[in-house]
Protein backbone atom coordinates (compact mmCIF):
# COMPACT_ATOMS: atom_id res chain seq x y z
CA UNK A 1 0.00 0.00 0.00
CA UNK A 2 1.36 3.42 -0.98
CA UNK A 3 0.34 6.68 0.66
CA UNK A 4 1.10 9.85 -1.24
CA UNK A 5 2.33 12.30 1.39
CA UNK A 6 1.57 15.85 0.12
CA UNK A 7 5.08 16.87 1.16
CA UNK A 8 7.22 13.80 0.40
CA UNK A 9 5.33 12.08 -2.41
CA UNK A 10 4.31 8.42 -2.65
CA UNK A 11 5.86 6.30 0.10
CA UNK A 12 5.38 2.77 1.36
CA UNK A 13 2.87 2.29 4.18
CA UNK A 14 5.68 1.13 6.51
CA UNK A 15 6.77 4.77 6.82
CA UNK A 16 3.39 5.71 8.27
CA UNK A 17 1.70 5.17 11.62
CA UNK A 18 -2.05 4.77 11.76
CA UNK A 19 -3.56 7.23 14.21
CA UNK A 20 -7.11 6.01 13.88
CA UNK A 21 -10.51 7.18 12.90
CA UNK A 22 -10.53 10.77 11.58
CA UNK A 23 -14.26 11.22 12.08
CA UNK A 24 -14.03 11.61 15.82
CA UNK A 25 -14.45 15.08 17.22
CA UNK A 26 -12.72 15.83 20.47
CA UNK A 27 -14.99 17.85 22.74
CA UNK A 28 -13.80 21.10 24.23
CA UNK A 29 -11.38 20.09 27.05
CA UNK A 30 -13.51 22.08 29.49
CA UNK A 31 -16.66 20.33 28.38
CA UNK A 32 -18.47 18.21 30.93
CA UNK A 33 -20.80 16.75 28.32
CA UNK A 34 -20.55 13.07 29.28
CA UNK A 35 -22.26 11.79 26.14
CA UNK A 36 -19.94 13.75 23.86
CA UNK A 37 -16.83 12.44 25.65
CA UNK A 38 -18.18 8.89 25.63
CA UNK A 39 -18.86 9.08 21.91
CA UNK A 40 -15.40 10.53 21.26
CA UNK A 41 -13.60 7.80 23.18
CA UNK A 42 -15.64 4.71 22.32
CA UNK A 43 -17.94 5.09 19.31
CA UNK A 44 -16.69 4.33 15.81
CA UNK A 45 -18.36 4.50 12.39
CA UNK A 46 -16.26 1.60 11.08
CA UNK A 47 -17.58 1.85 7.51
CA UNK A 48 -17.13 -0.78 4.78
CA UNK A 49 -16.05 1.65 2.09
CA UNK A 50 -14.46 5.09 2.21
CA UNK A 51 -13.06 5.85 5.64
CA UNK A 52 -11.78 9.18 6.86
CA UNK A 53 -8.65 8.50 8.90
CA UNK A 54 -5.51 10.08 10.36
CA UNK A 55 -2.03 8.80 9.55
CA UNK A 56 1.31 10.21 10.60
CA UNK A 57 4.25 10.12 8.22
CA UNK A 58 6.35 9.06 11.21
CA UNK A 59 9.22 7.71 9.09
CA UNK A 60 9.33 10.82 6.91
CA UNK A 61 8.31 14.44 7.38
CA UNK A 62 6.30 13.50 10.52
CA UNK A 63 3.27 15.44 9.31
CA UNK A 64 -0.19 14.25 10.35
CA UNK A 65 -2.31 13.45 7.33
CA UNK A 66 -5.99 13.13 6.71
CA UNK A 67 -6.45 10.16 4.40
CA UNK A 68 -9.60 8.85 2.76
CA UNK A 69 -9.10 5.13 2.19
CA UNK A 70 -11.50 2.44 1.09
CA UNK A 71 -11.59 -0.28 3.76
CA UNK A 72 -12.69 -2.94 1.24
CA UNK A 73 -10.02 -2.30 -1.41
CA UNK A 74 -7.32 -0.24 0.41
CA UNK A 75 -7.67 2.31 -2.42
CA UNK A 76 -6.74 5.82 -1.28
CA UNK A 77 -8.79 8.62 -2.81
CA UNK A 78 -7.39 11.63 -0.99
CA UNK A 79 -4.52 12.69 1.24
CA UNK A 80 -4.20 16.11 2.84
CA UNK A 81 -2.47 17.61 5.84
CA UNK A 82 -4.61 17.07 8.91
CA UNK A 83 -4.15 20.66 9.98
CA UNK A 84 -5.89 22.86 7.42
CA UNK A 85 -3.76 25.99 7.66
CA UNK A 86 -0.44 24.24 7.76
CA UNK A 87 -1.70 21.97 5.05
CA UNK A 88 -2.42 24.71 2.55
CA UNK A 89 1.06 26.29 2.92
CA UNK A 90 2.88 23.00 2.78
CA UNK A 91 0.82 21.77 -0.14
CA UNK A 92 1.88 24.87 -2.10
CA UNK A 93 5.50 24.05 -1.29
CA UNK A 94 5.02 20.53 -2.56
CA UNK A 95 3.49 21.84 -5.77
CA UNK A 96 6.41 24.24 -6.23
CA UNK A 97 8.82 21.33 -6.36
CA UNK A 98 10.02 20.45 -9.84
Amino acid at each position, binding site marked *: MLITCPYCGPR*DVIEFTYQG*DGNRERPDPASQNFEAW*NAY*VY*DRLNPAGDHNEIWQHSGGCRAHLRVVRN*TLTHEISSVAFASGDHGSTARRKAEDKP
Partner: protein
Amino acid sequence: MAEYSAFSLLANALKGNKDWKPAWRKPDPKASYDVIIIGGGGHGLATAYYLAKEHGITNVAVLEKGWLGSGNVGRNTTAVRSNYLLPANTRFYEHSMKMWEGLSHELNYNVMFSQRGCLNLAHTPAQFDDYARRGNAMRHLGVDAELMTPAQIKRLIPALDISSDARFPVVGGLMQRRAGTARHDAVAWGYARGADRRGVDIIENCEVTGFLRDGDRVTGVTTSRGDIRARKVAVAVAGSTGRVMRLAGIETMPIESHVLQAFVTESLKPFIDTVVTFGMGHFYMSQSDKGGLVYGGDIDGYNSYAQRGNLPIVDEVMSEMLALFPGLARVRMLRSWGGVCDMSMDGSPIITTGPLPGMYLNCGWCYGGFKATPASGWTFAWTIAKDEPHDFNAPFTLDRFHRGLVIDDKGQGANPRLH
Protein backbone atom coordinates in the same frame (compact mmCIF):
# COMPACT_ATOMS: atom_id res chain seq x y z
CA MET B 1 -26.15 -44.91 19.15
CA ALA B 2 -23.43 -42.48 18.24
CA GLU B 3 -23.43 -41.69 14.54
CA TYR B 4 -19.66 -42.03 14.34
CA SER B 5 -18.36 -45.11 16.17
CA ALA B 6 -15.86 -47.90 15.61
CA PHE B 7 -18.80 -50.03 14.48
CA SER B 8 -20.25 -47.45 12.05
CA LEU B 9 -16.80 -46.81 10.57
CA LEU B 10 -16.31 -50.54 9.96
CA ALA B 11 -19.82 -51.11 8.65
CA ASN B 12 -19.56 -48.18 6.22
CA ALA B 13 -16.08 -49.17 5.14
CA LEU B 14 -17.36 -52.63 4.22
CA LYS B 15 -20.23 -51.08 2.25
CA GLY B 16 -17.96 -48.72 0.28
CA ASN B 17 -18.83 -45.65 2.39
CA LYS B 18 -22.08 -45.19 0.46
CA ASP B 19 -24.43 -44.93 3.43
CA TRP B 20 -23.09 -41.91 5.31
CA LYS B 21 -25.73 -39.23 5.75
CA PRO B 22 -24.78 -35.62 4.95
CA ALA B 23 -23.67 -33.90 8.17
CA TRP B 24 -26.35 -31.25 7.73
CA ARG B 25 -29.41 -30.85 5.50
CA LYS B 26 -29.84 -28.06 2.95
CA PRO B 27 -33.33 -26.84 3.87
CA ASP B 28 -35.14 -23.92 2.29
CA PRO B 29 -35.92 -21.14 4.74
CA LYS B 30 -39.33 -21.27 6.42
CA ALA B 31 -41.48 -18.15 6.73
CA SER B 32 -40.74 -17.81 10.42
CA TYR B 33 -38.70 -19.19 13.29
CA ASP B 34 -38.46 -18.77 17.04
CA VAL B 35 -34.85 -17.69 16.69
CA ILE B 36 -32.77 -16.59 13.71
CA ILE B 37 -29.00 -16.60 14.13
CA ILE B 38 -27.16 -14.46 11.57
CA GLY B 39 -23.76 -15.97 10.91
CA GLY B 40 -22.88 -19.63 10.26
CA GLY B 41 -19.45 -19.55 11.85
CA GLY B 42 -18.30 -21.29 14.99
CA HIS B 43 -20.13 -19.01 17.40
CA GLY B 44 -23.41 -18.98 15.48
CA LEU B 45 -23.44 -22.76 15.06
CA ALA B 46 -22.47 -23.37 18.69
CA THR B 47 -25.25 -21.01 19.76
CA ALA B 48 -27.78 -22.94 17.68
CA TYR B 49 -26.53 -26.24 19.09
CA TYR B 50 -26.84 -25.12 22.72
CA LEU B 51 -30.21 -23.43 22.12
CA ALA B 52 -31.51 -26.80 20.95
CA LYS B 53 -29.69 -28.99 23.43
CA GLU B 54 -29.76 -26.95 26.64
CA HIS B 55 -32.94 -24.93 26.21
CA GLY B 56 -35.12 -27.09 23.94
CA ILE B 57 -35.46 -24.29 21.38
CA THR B 58 -35.24 -26.14 18.07
CA ASN B 59 -37.26 -23.93 15.71
CA VAL B 60 -34.06 -22.09 14.83
CA ALA B 61 -32.43 -20.97 11.58
CA VAL B 62 -28.74 -20.20 11.12
CA LEU B 63 -28.30 -17.87 8.13
CA GLU B 64 -24.90 -17.88 6.43
CA LYS B 65 -24.15 -15.55 3.53
CA GLY B 66 -21.47 -17.84 2.07
CA TRP B 67 -20.85 -21.46 2.84
CA LEU B 68 -20.74 -22.87 6.32
CA GLY B 69 -17.55 -22.03 8.17
CA SER B 70 -16.17 -19.79 5.41
CA GLY B 71 -15.37 -16.94 7.76
CA ASN B 72 -13.14 -16.70 10.80
CA VAL B 73 -13.74 -20.26 12.06
CA GLY B 74 -11.77 -21.47 9.06
CA ARG B 75 -9.23 -18.63 9.09
CA ASN B 76 -7.64 -18.72 12.53
CA THR B 77 -4.50 -20.29 14.00
CA THR B 78 -6.52 -22.77 16.13
CA ALA B 79 -5.01 -21.95 19.54
CA VAL B 80 -7.10 -22.58 22.64
CA ARG B 81 -6.06 -21.15 26.03
CA SER B 82 -7.40 -19.44 29.14
CA ASN B 83 -4.33 -17.55 30.38
CA TYR B 84 -5.90 -14.18 31.15
CA LEU B 85 -5.30 -11.70 33.94
CA LEU B 86 -8.69 -10.16 34.72
CA PRO B 87 -11.28 -12.31 36.52
CA ALA B 88 -14.11 -11.73 34.01
CA ASN B 89 -11.94 -13.02 31.18
CA THR B 90 -10.32 -15.83 33.16
CA ARG B 91 -13.66 -17.23 34.30
CA PHE B 92 -15.18 -17.03 30.84
CA TYR B 93 -12.25 -18.57 28.95
CA GLU B 94 -11.69 -21.23 31.61
CA HIS B 95 -15.32 -22.26 31.22
CA SER B 96 -14.59 -22.50 27.51
CA MET B 97 -11.47 -24.58 28.19
CA LYS B 98 -13.49 -27.04 30.28
CA MET B 99 -15.99 -27.34 27.45
CA TRP B 100 -13.16 -27.98 24.96
CA GLU B 101 -11.92 -30.83 27.15
CA GLY B 102 -15.18 -32.71 26.57
CA LEU B 103 -16.14 -31.35 23.16
CA SER B 104 -15.28 -34.30 20.89
CA HIS B 105 -17.25 -36.60 23.19
CA GLU B 106 -20.12 -34.13 23.53
CA LEU B 107 -20.48 -33.70 19.76
CA ASN B 108 -19.49 -37.28 18.83
CA TYR B 109 -17.21 -35.51 16.36
CA ASN B 110 -13.43 -35.53 16.62
CA VAL B 111 -12.43 -31.87 16.94
CA MET B 112 -8.85 -33.06 17.50
CA PHE B 113 -8.44 -30.98 20.66
CA SER B 114 -4.82 -31.41 21.58
CA GLN B 115 -3.68 -30.15 25.00
CA ARG B 116 -0.13 -29.56 23.93
CA GLY B 117 0.32 -26.50 26.14
CA CYS B 118 0.78 -22.82 25.44
CA LEU B 119 4.03 -21.13 26.46
CA ASN B 120 4.41 -17.33 26.62
CA LEU B 121 8.08 -16.38 26.45
CA ALA B 122 9.49 -13.56 28.60
CA HIS B 123 12.50 -11.62 27.38
CA THR B 124 13.09 -9.21 30.26
CA PRO B 125 13.00 -9.69 34.04
CA ALA B 126 10.09 -7.21 34.21
CA GLN B 127 8.13 -9.23 31.69
CA PHE B 128 8.86 -12.41 33.65
CA ASP B 129 7.51 -10.70 36.80
CA ASP B 130 4.43 -9.70 34.85
CA TYR B 131 3.89 -13.31 33.80
CA ALA B 132 4.33 -14.42 37.41
CA ARG B 133 1.58 -11.98 38.34
CA ARG B 134 -0.67 -13.31 35.60
CA GLY B 135 0.09 -16.92 36.56
CA ASN B 136 -0.83 -16.17 40.18
CA ALA B 137 -4.05 -14.48 39.07
CA MET B 138 -4.91 -17.58 37.04
CA ARG B 139 -4.13 -19.98 39.88
CA HIS B 140 -6.31 -17.93 42.26
CA LEU B 141 -9.22 -18.83 39.97
CA GLY B 142 -8.27 -22.49 39.70
CA VAL B 143 -6.59 -22.31 36.28
CA ASP B 144 -3.31 -24.14 35.73
CA ALA B 145 -0.20 -22.00 35.22
CA GLU B 146 3.48 -22.60 35.77
CA LEU B 147 6.62 -20.55 35.37
CA MET B 148 9.42 -22.13 33.37
CA THR B 149 13.17 -21.44 33.35
CA PRO B 150 15.18 -21.12 30.12
CA ALA B 151 16.70 -24.58 30.71
CA GLN B 152 13.24 -26.16 31.03
CA ILE B 153 12.09 -24.27 27.95
CA LYS B 154 15.08 -25.49 25.95
CA ARG B 155 14.23 -29.09 26.85
CA LEU B 156 10.63 -28.52 25.73
CA ILE B 157 11.51 -26.66 22.49
CA PRO B 158 15.03 -27.66 21.40
CA ALA B 159 14.93 -25.50 18.25
CA LEU B 160 14.36 -22.29 20.21
CA ASP B 161 17.32 -19.91 20.42
CA ILE B 162 17.77 -19.26 24.15
CA SER B 163 21.41 -18.17 23.93
CA SER B 164 22.41 -14.93 25.61
CA ASP B 165 23.43 -13.46 22.26
CA ALA B 166 19.96 -13.99 20.76
CA ARG B 167 18.44 -10.71 19.63
CA PHE B 168 15.91 -11.04 22.49
CA PRO B 169 17.28 -13.54 25.04
CA VAL B 170 14.69 -15.76 26.73
CA VAL B 171 14.61 -15.25 30.50
CA GLY B 172 11.66 -17.54 31.24
CA GLY B 173 8.10 -18.27 30.34
CA LEU B 174 4.56 -18.83 31.54
CA MET B 175 3.13 -22.21 30.59
CA GLN B 176 -0.49 -23.32 30.57
CA ARG B 177 -0.29 -27.09 30.04
CA ARG B 178 -4.03 -27.58 29.46
CA ALA B 179 -4.02 -25.11 26.57
CA GLY B 180 -3.51 -26.34 23.03
CA THR B 181 -5.03 -26.45 19.58
CA ALA B 182 -8.10 -27.90 17.87
CA ARG B 183 -9.10 -28.69 14.32
CA HIS B 184 -11.02 -25.51 13.48
CA ASP B 185 -13.14 -26.83 10.58
CA ALA B 186 -14.17 -29.87 12.61
CA VAL B 187 -15.51 -27.55 15.32
CA ALA B 188 -17.81 -25.89 12.78
CA TRP B 189 -18.87 -29.18 11.22
CA GLY B 190 -19.40 -30.89 14.58
CA TYR B 191 -21.62 -28.09 15.90
CA ALA B 192 -23.44 -27.90 12.55
CA ARG B 193 -24.25 -31.59 12.60
CA GLY B 194 -25.25 -31.48 16.27
CA ALA B 195 -27.59 -28.56 15.64
CA ASP B 196 -28.99 -30.04 12.43
CA ARG B 197 -29.82 -33.37 14.07
CA ARG B 198 -31.79 -31.45 16.73
CA GLY B 199 -33.89 -29.71 14.10
CA VAL B 200 -32.01 -26.47 13.45
CA ASP B 201 -32.15 -25.28 9.81
CA ILE B 202 -28.72 -24.28 8.54
CA ILE B 203 -29.30 -22.09 5.50
CA GLU B 204 -26.24 -21.32 3.41
CA ASN B 205 -25.89 -18.73 0.63
CA CYS B 206 -28.47 -16.62 2.41
CA GLU B 207 -27.27 -13.06 2.94
CA VAL B 208 -29.11 -10.80 5.35
CA THR B 209 -29.91 -7.53 3.58
CA GLY B 210 -31.97 -5.79 6.24
CA PHE B 211 -34.07 -6.10 9.36
CA LEU B 212 -37.85 -6.30 9.67
CA ARG B 213 -39.07 -3.93 12.32
CA ASP B 214 -42.22 -3.26 14.26
CA GLY B 215 -41.46 0.15 15.71
CA ASP B 216 -38.16 -0.36 17.54
CA ARG B 217 -38.62 -4.08 17.81
CA VAL B 218 -36.76 -6.40 15.44
CA THR B 219 -39.20 -8.99 14.08
CA GLY B 220 -37.13 -10.71 11.43
CA VAL B 221 -34.76 -10.17 8.54
CA THR B 222 -34.86 -9.57 4.81
CA THR B 223 -32.47 -11.84 2.97
CA SER B 224 -31.31 -12.78 -0.51
CA ARG B 225 -33.74 -15.70 -0.17
CA GLY B 226 -36.77 -13.71 0.98
CA ASP B 227 -38.14 -12.32 4.22
CA ILE B 228 -37.91 -14.47 7.34
CA ARG B 229 -39.70 -13.58 10.55
CA ALA B 230 -38.56 -14.49 14.03
CA ARG B 231 -39.38 -13.71 17.64
CA LYS B 232 -35.67 -13.26 18.32
CA VAL B 233 -32.82 -12.33 16.01
CA ALA B 234 -29.27 -13.06 17.14
CA VAL B 235 -26.24 -11.54 15.42
CA ALA B 236 -22.91 -13.43 15.47
CA VAL B 237 -21.04 -12.17 12.42
CA ALA B 238 -17.54 -11.41 13.78
CA GLY B 239 -15.75 -8.97 11.45
CA SER B 240 -18.98 -7.96 9.70
CA THR B 241 -20.63 -6.61 12.87
CA GLY B 242 -20.29 -3.00 11.73
CA ARG B 243 -21.96 -3.72 8.39
CA VAL B 244 -24.82 -5.80 9.82
CA MET B 245 -25.56 -3.37 12.64
CA ARG B 246 -25.73 -0.55 10.10
CA LEU B 247 -28.53 -2.50 8.38
CA ALA B 248 -30.39 -2.20 11.68
CA GLY B 249 -29.83 1.56 11.74
CA ILE B 250 -27.07 1.48 14.35
CA GLU B 251 -24.38 3.75 12.95
CA THR B 252 -21.67 3.53 15.60
CA MET B 253 -20.35 0.68 17.72
CA PRO B 254 -17.38 0.40 20.11
CA ILE B 255 -15.72 -1.71 17.41
CA GLU B 256 -13.30 -1.36 14.50
CA SER B 257 -12.77 -4.06 11.87
CA HIS B 258 -9.12 -4.99 11.30
CA VAL B 259 -7.53 -7.71 9.23
CA LEU B 260 -5.44 -10.38 10.95
CA GLN B 261 -3.12 -12.48 8.81
CA ALA B 262 -1.94 -16.03 9.39
CA PHE B 263 0.62 -18.20 7.67
CA VAL B 264 1.55 -21.82 7.21
CA THR B 265 4.80 -23.40 6.07
CA GLU B 266 5.38 -26.53 4.06
CA SER B 267 5.05 -29.72 6.11
CA LEU B 268 7.94 -30.60 8.36
CA LYS B 269 8.77 -33.60 10.54
CA PRO B 270 7.70 -33.05 14.18
CA PHE B 271 9.38 -29.80 15.14
CA ILE B 272 7.47 -28.27 18.03
CA ASP B 273 4.83 -29.93 20.20
CA THR B 274 3.44 -26.90 21.99
CA VAL B 275 2.05 -23.46 21.17
CA VAL B 276 4.71 -20.83 21.71
CA THR B 277 4.34 -17.04 21.80
CA PHE B 278 7.04 -14.38 21.52
CA GLY B 279 6.87 -11.77 24.26
CA MET B 280 9.03 -9.11 22.64
CA GLY B 281 6.78 -8.56 19.67
CA HIS B 282 3.62 -10.34 18.72
CA PHE B 283 4.16 -13.81 17.31
CA TYR B 284 2.60 -17.22 18.00
CA MET B 285 3.26 -20.57 16.41
CA SER B 286 2.24 -24.19 16.61
CA GLN B 287 2.61 -27.19 14.35
CA SER B 288 -0.46 -28.69 12.74
CA ASP B 289 -1.05 -32.43 12.78
CA LYS B 290 -0.28 -32.38 9.05
CA GLY B 291 3.18 -30.95 9.78
CA GLY B 292 2.91 -27.32 8.68
CA LEU B 293 3.97 -24.62 11.09
CA VAL B 294 0.97 -22.36 11.67
CA TYR B 295 1.81 -18.88 12.84
CA GLY B 296 0.76 -15.27 12.98
CA GLY B 297 1.41 -11.92 14.59
CA ASP B 298 -0.15 -8.49 14.83
CA ILE B 299 -3.21 -7.28 13.00
CA ASP B 300 -2.48 -4.99 10.06
CA GLY B 301 -3.61 -2.20 12.37
CA TYR B 302 -5.90 -0.02 10.29
CA ASN B 303 -9.58 -0.46 9.53
CA SER B 304 -10.14 -3.11 6.92
CA TYR B 305 -12.88 -5.40 5.68
CA ALA B 306 -10.58 -7.03 3.10
CA GLN B 307 -9.95 -10.68 3.83
CA ARG B 308 -6.36 -10.36 2.71
CA GLY B 309 -3.30 -8.71 4.18
CA ASN B 310 -0.47 -6.40 3.28
CA LEU B 311 3.25 -7.16 3.06
CA PRO B 312 4.64 -5.14 6.00
CA ILE B 313 3.08 -7.52 8.53
CA VAL B 314 4.29 -10.53 6.56
CA ASP B 315 7.78 -9.12 6.83
CA GLU B 316 7.40 -8.40 10.54
CA VAL B 317 6.02 -11.85 11.40
CA MET B 318 8.81 -13.58 9.48
CA SER B 319 11.43 -11.49 11.32
CA GLU B 320 9.95 -12.45 14.67
CA MET B 321 9.87 -16.11 13.70
CA LEU B 322 13.55 -16.01 12.80
CA ALA B 323 14.46 -14.17 16.00
CA LEU B 324 13.11 -17.20 17.90
CA PHE B 325 13.95 -19.97 15.45
CA PRO B 326 16.94 -19.08 13.25
CA GLY B 327 16.81 -22.65 11.95
CA LEU B 328 13.58 -21.94 10.07
CA ALA B 329 15.20 -19.41 7.73
CA ARG B 330 15.09 -21.71 4.72
CA VAL B 331 11.66 -23.22 5.34
CA ARG B 332 9.19 -22.15 2.68
CA MET B 333 5.93 -20.42 3.49
CA LEU B 334 3.13 -22.32 1.80
CA ARG B 335 0.28 -19.84 2.06
CA SER B 336 -1.09 -16.90 3.97
CA TRP B 337 -4.58 -15.65 4.54
CA GLY B 338 -6.43 -12.88 6.31
CA GLY B 339 -9.51 -12.79 8.51
CA VAL B 340 -11.42 -9.74 9.66
CA CYS B 341 -11.59 -9.25 13.43
CA ASP B 342 -13.90 -6.82 15.10
CA MET B 343 -11.49 -5.17 17.52
CA SER B 344 -13.37 -3.77 20.50
CA MET B 345 -12.35 -0.74 22.55
CA ASP B 346 -11.09 -2.81 25.50
CA GLY B 347 -10.03 -6.02 23.78
CA SER B 348 -12.89 -8.03 25.30
CA PRO B 349 -16.03 -9.42 23.67
CA ILE B 350 -19.64 -8.30 23.80
CA ILE B 351 -22.36 -10.94 24.43
CA THR B 352 -25.58 -9.23 25.25
CA THR B 353 -29.29 -8.72 24.82
CA GLY B 354 -30.08 -5.81 22.52
CA PRO B 355 -29.09 -3.26 21.41
CA LEU B 356 -32.64 -3.24 19.93
CA PRO B 357 -35.63 -5.08 21.41
CA GLY B 358 -35.81 -8.56 19.89
CA MET B 359 -32.12 -8.50 19.00
CA TYR B 360 -29.15 -10.27 20.60
CA LEU B 361 -25.54 -9.46 19.86
CA ASN B 362 -22.33 -11.48 20.02
CA CYS B 363 -19.25 -9.62 18.75
CA GLY B 364 -15.97 -7.89 19.59
CA TRP B 365 -13.77 -10.99 19.79
CA CYS B 366 -10.57 -9.27 18.69
CA TYR B 367 -7.90 -11.96 18.27
CA GLY B 368 -9.62 -14.45 20.53
CA GLY B 369 -12.80 -15.79 18.99
CA PHE B 370 -11.78 -19.34 18.20
CA LYS B 371 -10.89 -20.50 21.71
CA ALA B 372 -14.09 -18.92 22.97
CA THR B 373 -16.37 -20.85 20.60
CA PRO B 374 -17.93 -23.33 23.07
CA ALA B 375 -18.47 -20.85 25.92
CA SER B 376 -19.57 -18.12 23.54
CA GLY B 377 -22.25 -20.36 22.05
CA TRP B 378 -23.25 -21.68 25.45
CA THR B 379 -23.61 -18.26 27.14
CA PHE B 380 -25.18 -16.65 24.06
CA ALA B 381 -27.78 -19.43 23.90
CA TRP B 382 -28.50 -18.87 27.60
CA THR B 383 -28.87 -15.11 27.00
CA ILE B 384 -31.21 -15.64 24.03
CA ALA B 385 -33.33 -18.25 25.79
CA LYS B 386 -33.68 -16.42 29.11
CA ASP B 387 -33.38 -12.79 28.00
CA GLU B 388 -30.66 -12.29 30.58
CA PRO B 389 -26.95 -13.09 30.74
CA HIS B 390 -25.39 -16.02 32.52
CA ASP B 391 -22.88 -15.07 35.25
CA PHE B 392 -20.09 -15.93 32.81
CA ASN B 393 -21.10 -13.28 30.24
CA ALA B 394 -22.77 -10.75 32.55
CA PRO B 395 -19.69 -8.47 32.49
CA PHE B 396 -19.53 -8.49 28.66
CA THR B 397 -22.25 -5.93 28.03
CA LEU B 398 -22.42 -3.38 25.25
CA ASP B 399 -22.85 -0.48 27.67
CA ARG B 400 -19.83 -1.33 29.84
CA PHE B 401 -17.85 1.42 28.08
CA HIS B 402 -20.54 3.93 28.89
CA ARG B 403 -20.64 2.75 32.49
CA GLY B 404 -16.86 2.78 32.98
CA LEU B 405 -16.65 -0.99 33.46
CA VAL B 406 -14.21 -1.86 30.68
CA ILE B 407 -12.41 -5.23 30.71
CA ASP B 408 -9.01 -4.19 29.39
CA ASP B 409 -6.70 -7.19 29.92
CA LYS B 410 -3.74 -5.51 28.25
CA GLY B 411 -4.31 -2.05 29.68
CA GLN B 412 -4.15 -0.36 26.27
CA GLY B 413 -7.11 1.95 26.58
CA ALA B 414 -9.68 2.58 23.86
CA ASN B 415 -7.23 1.83 21.07
CA PRO B 416 -8.40 -1.18 19.06
CA ARG B 417 -5.21 -1.67 17.08
CA LEU B 418 -3.23 -2.23 20.30
CA HIS B 419 -5.42 -4.94 21.85
